[in-house]
């Protein structure tokens, strides 16, 4: 009879310290000599991880009220504008917001400094009301004198992403890094067979409420991410060949470790933020075993020309080729590099594995599964 396990049974094994936990890379290697049935029999949990630049990220903070109080209508942190369009002293620091005079410094840097315990200069303005009479304030805040800092990232952990190249005659500075002219290099951004949503492409075990590793602490999947797409073209191994599903995640900034949240600046593009995410996947049955056994050579992605504003597809490749350091396109060998860090992703997958092994991290069954067959709209320019 084939193996069937429930979340509850796996959690009981974790609590007893008996669960067999492996990283997604380890289980992919095991898959070369073991059948899905054998993997389902032997392995309980597979840890996945990613550490890449994720623009759609940010942090809510509540600064506490001054005396007299102010209803902040415009505010900056270290000179970087922050969103004030909510209650009086609730602010949202968008990771990509930039300092008006220093394009290489932005919200992600402010977040990193708050996590690290540094003082950050707050300046805010208001019209003044009967209940909030103060019209401006200039002070410093840090993690010890604010009420909350909650990281909430509307779109993280993209399930697959295209490779960027540049066929034009000029270097292109993009969110996919520096792209040298005439196919001078190729940049990709994923941890491949270690990446969370590539190990559970149908999102059977990853859904709303899933407990995850976020920025060095425990976080949660709060919703499907923005631009979530679950009707993407799949390859023969059942994984989407392009960017598809995404996650919205939430976690306590006070508990985070700045080594898993890093501010980034891409030349002539702007600020972004590296976010470290780890997701445990329970091996419930043979079908899940097959999913987590996926290998880099089985994950296809598209190669797009970022030298052309329409980003036409030039070909397809897989992550084994990309990670070899070189791909071939138009009879030319092209050097590849990654924007996400596989080294850091492995560190996260290992940390999560150790936490689960010692019973410090239990799995959660999704409170609700993500929508099926969801497509995307594009923005029509109406005159």
């Amino acid at each position, binding site marked *: 009879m084939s193996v069937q396990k429930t979340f509850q049974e796996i959690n009981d094994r974790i609590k007893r310290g008996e669960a067999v936990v492996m990283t997604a890379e380890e289980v992919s290697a095991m898959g070369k000599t073991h059948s899905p049935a054998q993997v389902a029999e032997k392995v309980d949990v597979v840890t996945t991880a990613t*550490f*890449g*630049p994720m623009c759609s990220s940010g942090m809510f903070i509540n600064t506490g009220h001054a005396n007299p109080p102010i209803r902040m209508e415009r505010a900056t942190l270290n000179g970087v504008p922050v969103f004030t369009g909510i209650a009086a002293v609730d602010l949202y620091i968008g990771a990509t917001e930039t300092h008006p005079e220093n394009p*290489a410094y932005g919200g992600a840097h402010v977040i990193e400094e708050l996590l690290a315990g540094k003082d950050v200069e707050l300046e805010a303005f208001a019209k003044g009301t009967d209940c909030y009479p103060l019209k401006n304030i200039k002070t410093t805040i840090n993690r010890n004198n604010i009420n909350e800092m909650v990281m909430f990232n509307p779109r993280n952990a993209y399930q697959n992403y295209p490779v960027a190249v540049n066929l034009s005659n000029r270097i292109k*500075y993009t969110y996919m*890094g*520096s792209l*040298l002219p005439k196919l*001078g*290099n*190729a*940049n990709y951004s994923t941890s491949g067979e270690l990446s969370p949503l590539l190990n559970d492409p149908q999102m059977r075990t990853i859904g709303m409420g899933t407990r995850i590793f976020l920025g060095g602490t425990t976080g949660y999947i709060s919703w499907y991410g923005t631009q979530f797409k679950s009707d993407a073209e799949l390859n023969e191994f059942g994984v989407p060949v392009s960017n598809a599903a995404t996650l919205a995640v939430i976690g306590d900034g006070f508990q985070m470790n700045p080594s898993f949240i*890093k*501010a*980034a*600046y*891409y*030349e002539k593009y702007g600020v*972004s933020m*590296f976010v470290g995410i780890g997701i445990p996947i329970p091996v419930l049955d043979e079908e899940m075993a097959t999913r987590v056994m996926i290998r880099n050579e089985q994950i296809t992605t598209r190669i797009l020309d970022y030298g052309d504003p329409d980003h036409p597809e030039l070909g397809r490749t897989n992550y084994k080729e990309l*990670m*070899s*350091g070189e791909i071939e396109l138009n009879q030319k060998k092209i*050097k*590849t*590099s*990654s*924007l*996400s*860090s*596989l*080294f*850091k992703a*492995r560190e996260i997958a290992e940390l999560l594995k150790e936490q689960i092994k010692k019973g410090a991290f239990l799995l959660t069954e999704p409170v609700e599964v993500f929508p099926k067959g969801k497509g995307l709209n594009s923005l029509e320019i109406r005159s």
Partner: protein
Amino acid sequence: MARTKRRMVLRFPAESVNEPITYTLIKEYDVLINILNADITHGREGNLLIEMVGDKGNVDNAVGYLESKQVEISPVVKTILFNESACIHCGACSSVCFPGALEMDPDSRKLQFLPEKCVACELCIKACPLQLFELNFGVN
């Protein structure tokens, strides 16, 4: 005698482009020439980025010979400084590094910086999202 190593950009006037200058340097002055970058068009001016290694006296004589041929010599004192301890090993710099001074280790997936291969082209400075590279104008 002390060995010395100097990096320099040689700018050849049009009349010297067709002379076997590198051959003469090696054969007559006994210096080791490592060509790091070359941009020479016959009949026009050319640039050569070289590293010259040899006994100090030989290197000085070789430089004297170049000057006698109206070759303009600009010493390369630029080097790239890398704040390695803050690196997150994404690898974004490695594909723009044409001399291969920045390479990802295929097993550990850690970035390796090999300064001896660096020609200070500066592409990594813009490619690094954490801005960990900077140009050093100190004496080489």
